[in-house]
């Protein structure tokens, strides 16, 4: 009768001795709830789960926790969430439909900005090139300048 707890304890120690290294070797858990919360949206709130505070968000968190505990990878968890809620659950927008604008618009905006800056720089350079060159100073002008400077120097002295 008294042996039963000892046998159970020995079985638990030996089992944990086998399973713990196996889980560690598999890298389990392969992600954390916190890491996944930035990749998954709260559908009702329209913000990433990390920022969400709602009953629906709590249900999503519970599902993610179960998947993390099952040792699923981030990709597998994302796939499971998409299977459960549809593609809109992902924080990263899909590359099709209207959502493709989320990918295209920044690229187009950067290209337009680069074109605009390039255009402005080119026009400034062209304007500088178009400025007429001054005629060289003649000997008479130099003599007049010297005389003016000399008169200023005399007045100040």
């Amino acid at each position, binding site marked *: 009768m008294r042996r039963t707890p000892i046998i159970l304890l020995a079985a638990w120690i030996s089992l944990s001795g086998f399973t713990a290294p196996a889980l560690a070797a598999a890298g389990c858990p392969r992600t954390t709830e916190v890491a996944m919360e930035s990749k998954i949206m709260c559908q009702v709130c329209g913000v990433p789960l990390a920022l969400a505070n709602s*009953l*629906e968000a709590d*249900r999503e968190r519970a599902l993610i926790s179960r998947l993390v505990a099952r040792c699923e990878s981030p990709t597998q968890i994302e796939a499971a969430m998409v299977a459960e*809620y*549809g593609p*809109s*659950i992902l924080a990263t927008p899909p590359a099709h439909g*209207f959502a493709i604008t989320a990918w295209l618009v920044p690229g187009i905006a950067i290209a*337009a900005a680069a074109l605009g800056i390039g*255009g402005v720089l080119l026009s400034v350079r062209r304007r500088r090139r178009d400025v007429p060159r001054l005629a060289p100073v003649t000997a008479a002008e130099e003599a007049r300048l010297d005389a003016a400077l000399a008169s200023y120097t005399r007045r100040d002295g």
Partner: protein
Amino acid sequence: MRRRPGLRGWLVLLATTGVLVLLGLGLAANHPSRGLDQAIAQGRRALAPSVRLPSLTTGRTYTLRAFRGRVVVLNLWASWCEPCRAEAPLLERWSRRIAARGGSVVGIDTFDTSSDARSFIRQLHLTYPMLRDPSGVVKARFGVTGFPESFVVDRAGRVAAVARGPVTDAFMRTTVLPLLGNRT
């Protein structure tokens, strides 16, 4: 004399128009439609948006069109929504009450985990058809902003009444019962 815009002017105009179009599309995509409410307020019945969803319990696909000829109370709910839990027994009672008179209650579970939704159905002993809309496609079409919301669809497939919030006995009596008597 007016100067015609040059290439740069056209490019700026094009870019501005593009940004405005994108902003408009984004706003339209995220702004809930109130067309059904407006139609009802004007005494009209707008045709119900199409619904084609899988069943939450059987895997069979249902369409709203298949219910043409019946009065349908389309109820959007989620298992995490407490008012939905409070409302469900009333819908179950009404589902049994109107079935023989050509009425159906159809639940649409939205933004929910299927296992949680199935537990909800089991716990509350709900027997009316339950469809699954995990990404909220129907929610957007009907302009749903919260849960629960219900839409009473007449025998011709037009939306006759909307409940933005839980339905009550009074709502069902005043909106559903008159439609059941109307066979046209």
